[in-house]
């Protein structure tokens, strides 16, 4: 799990049976004490592998949306919730977005890519079981190729006992993050990063390719959020050379957060 704190933005991403949405109210309160007023909220997630294990308020998406709305102030009046489907119902993308009438200040050229990977290659997944001591995290970052995804980034990594790995990458004002659950039967890895449409477009492709190659998953879902539409086309260009074929595509407009495009890919051959 990860937390990113910017001067006027906070991002929390948690897995397991955490109760993420319970952070909304205390964060709004703490920000208010600093003279800051909330003007935007975005909540996203995939479809849980073990939905029955999730505690309140994460019992289902409808319940989550009710809870969010109850905890947001009335000034966030533009609200939209959507479940973006894929051909396989196990891979739906859940999005809630809201903003105040004076608008959220999402940067025009900025985009967020959220990648979810399941059925990781078993040999590669074994690299995420702890074997070393204090330097285990750095060794894992180097040996798996994660450190090479963005060589410019300052990496903060952590290995869990007996297995599992998390890292945050810090590169100027942009973050990236990876989380890995390597156990057979429910192996999972995520990669998320922020980019700009003004970057070299080949960088988007190469970054995605390098991240997915670390895990060689059977299924990949990619969500892109941007005010510009061209980003999602780059995703397919990154996946196809890796033997991953696009199986579904969904697009939805969120006036506040921009356009969300959700694509799923599966391995043509393992």
């Amino acid at each position, binding site marked *: *799990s*990860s*937390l*990113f*704190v*910017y*001067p*006027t*933005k*906070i*991002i929390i*991403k*948690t*897995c*397991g*049976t*955490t*109760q*993420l949405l319970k*952070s909304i109210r*205390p964060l*709004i309160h*703490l*920000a208010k004490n*600093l*003279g*800051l*007023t*909330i003007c*935007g*909220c*975005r*909540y996203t*997630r*995939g479809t*849980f*592998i*073990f939905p029955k*294990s999730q505690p309140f308020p*994460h019992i289902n998406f409808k319940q989550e949306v009710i809870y969010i709305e109850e905890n947001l102030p009335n000034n966030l009046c533009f609200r939209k919730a959507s479940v973006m489907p894929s051909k396989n119902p196990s891979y739906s993308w859940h999005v809630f977005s809201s903003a105040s009438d004076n608008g959220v*200040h999402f940067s025009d050229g900025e985009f967020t890519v959220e990648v*979810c990977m399941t059925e990781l290659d078993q040999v590669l997944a074994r690299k995420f079981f702890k074997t070393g001591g204090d330097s285990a995290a750095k060794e894992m970052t180097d040996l798996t190729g994660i450190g090479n995804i963005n060589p410019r980034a*300052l990496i*903060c*990594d952590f290995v869990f006992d007996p297995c599992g790995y*998390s*890292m*945050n990458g*810090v590169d100027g*004002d942009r*973050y990236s*993050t990876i*989380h890995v*659950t390597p*156990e057979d039967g*429910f*192996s*999972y*890895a*995520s990669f998320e990063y922020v980019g700009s449409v003004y970057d070299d477009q080949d960088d988007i492709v190469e970054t995605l390719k390098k991240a997915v190659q670390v895990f060689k998953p059977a299924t990949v879902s990619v969500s892109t959020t941007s005010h510009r539409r061209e980003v999602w086309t780059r995703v397919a260009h990154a996946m196809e050379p890796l033997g991953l074929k696009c199986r579904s595509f969904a697009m939805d407009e969120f006036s506040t957060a921009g356009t969300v495009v959700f694509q799923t890919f599966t391995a043509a051959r393992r």
Partner: protein
Amino acid sequence: MAVSGFEGFEKRLELHFFGDDNDPTVTTMGLRLLDFESLENVLRVVQCTVVSAVGNHFFDAYVLSE
């Protein structure tokens, strides 16, 4: 699929705020002025803790348990 296991799929929350644009502490520090204990209290409600952290001129990044 296993009957039960660790849920890898994350939940992700992004909150945006605004303040007085003329106040330089908002534009340069803002939420980064929150003390560590306050952040930990929020994370306790979520049911995780900070296990590692790094920061630069622009933002702070924390790796959390779970």
